[in-house]
């Protein structure tokens, strides 16, 4: 029984990391139409910044703030410098992001080599309740995720702003005619999504060691969750993150573990076939042609 409860907790913890990534993806992809495959690398940069800061003696909270700021600034620069020129052709934005993946990964390698990097756990406490072990870091990640998602939910869905964002992704010109500063909002969402990636990166390295290639493998899950939940839909991202986390946890824990990824992909395929708009409905995202 305690093993079962432990597995549920594990699922929750996986879910929180995935959700944090998915929230960034769902906002950027769903509300600006930018397909940023390099979101994982943004995350990785966040981790690297945290690692650098901690190695230089900064405390974790400060390092986390640094990661958020650095990645947000980077997001701002990249949106203004690159992505804004691809707004009308989302698939080109996608290629730009592929180029960025290569560039970011190897810039990090150039300066700090390709080896795995880790920081000491910022919280080392492990609570044991009736045979179930709860690590304080994991609890911290779950709590931070919950807080951030709630906050984001508040900001984004605050009716006026959220409405304007959804209108912008549906029809940019007409949204501008309504007086919506579309460009600025797109930048805003992109920067916010990037900041979330920075935060995610900081939390990630608090949990696991990372390499310059860590982001690439995680980001697909973010996209999967964003689509399963419905693009641009925060509730959807949270629910889908939970579902995927639990499915992943249980398939690794009880099923044929080498098929773990297969379960989550199968789940994603199933959901998208039955409910193409995602579980909770969302924007239709950019048109791909």
């Amino acid at each position: 029984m305690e093993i079962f409860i432990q597995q549920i907790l594990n699922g929750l913890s996986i879910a929180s990391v995935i959700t944090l990534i998915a929230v960034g993806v769902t906002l950027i992809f769903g509300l600006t139409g930018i397909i940023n495959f390099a979101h994982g690398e943004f995350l990785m940069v966040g981790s690297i910044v945290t690692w650098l800061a901690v190695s230089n003696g900064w405390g974790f909270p400060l390092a986390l703030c640094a990661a958020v700021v650095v990645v947000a600034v980077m997001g701002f620069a990249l949106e203004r410098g690159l992505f804004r020129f691809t707004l009308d052709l989302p698939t080109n934005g996608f290629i730009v992001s592929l180029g960025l993946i290569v560039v970011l990964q190897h810039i990090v390698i150039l300066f700090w080599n390709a080896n795995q990097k880790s920081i000491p756990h910022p919280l080392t406490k492990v609570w044991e309740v009736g045979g179930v072990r709860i690590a304080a870091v994991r609890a911290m990640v779950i709590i931070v995720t919950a807080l951030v998602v709630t906050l984001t939910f508040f900001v984004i869905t605050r009716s006026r702003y959220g409405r304007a964002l959804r209108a912008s992704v549906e029809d940019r010109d007409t949204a501008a005619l309504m007086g919506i500063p579309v460009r600025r909002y797109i930048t805003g969402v992109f920067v916010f999504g990037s900041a979330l990636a920075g935060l995610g990166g900081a939390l990630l390295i608090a949990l696991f060691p990372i390499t310059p290639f860590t982001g690439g493998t995680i980001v697909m899950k973010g996209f999967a969750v964003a689509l399963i939940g419905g693009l641009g839909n925060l509730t959807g991202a949270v629910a889908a993150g939970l579902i995927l986390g639990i499915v992943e946890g249980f398939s690794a824990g009880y099923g044929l573990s080498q098929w773990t990824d297969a379960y989550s992909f199968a789940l994603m395929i199933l959901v998208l076939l039955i409910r193409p708009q995602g579980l909770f409905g969302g924007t239709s995202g950019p048109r791909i042609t």
Partner: protein
Amino acid sequence: MLLEVSGITTGYGPTIVNRGVSLTLGAGEVATILGPNGAGKSTLLRTIAGLVKPRAGTVRFGGSDATGQPPDVMAKRGVVLVPEGRRIFGDMTVEENLRLGAYARRDSAAVDADVTLMENFFPILATKRRDKGGSLSGGQQQMLAIARGLMARPRVLLLDEPSLGLSPLLVKEIQAIILSIGERFGASVLLVEQNAGLALSVATRGYLMQTGQIVTSGPIEELRDMSLMRELYLGGAAVAS
């Protein structure tokens, strides 16, 4: 003059659409631009609203220069375009569409009141308040587009074919609404219409546009009787009014 357009030249890529177009619009006035398909009427409205950057010429609004300002800035300053082809936000509800129209406004209480006002103008919008814009019939969408434009409480309303797809009954209502915009909203209207009957009955001044240029302009009564107008626009048929 509230709005002064002078010497505007526009185009898309290699094609020139408007050539040196000038026109003016006074406060509270309703003017109309008439012209055959492809003359460049919509492009001119889009230019004034900031969606198309002019290649030459200036737009002055309220006495200051507004050439090449982005559409959101123009909207905030009070120049609002109800675009051709409705451009309803199909994934959003009717009420959300309406409220988006008032996006640039900060007076939320007055916005609520205006939503009610629009629903009085077009009762169907009240019935469909929670329905997705995309599920509306063509004419219902047209009503929504006009109402959405009015929600901005514009100083200049640019209407691009507002009667498109509306039933005769509603065309009459639109006619009444346009006529009342001046006093109710204190706004001027620049109207592009294919329904000459409607255009000629609401406007006080008209411009006749052909292949991107203004060929004639003047008080509406004069325009109505011009032979060029008949030839270009009315196909010789009697004007229904």
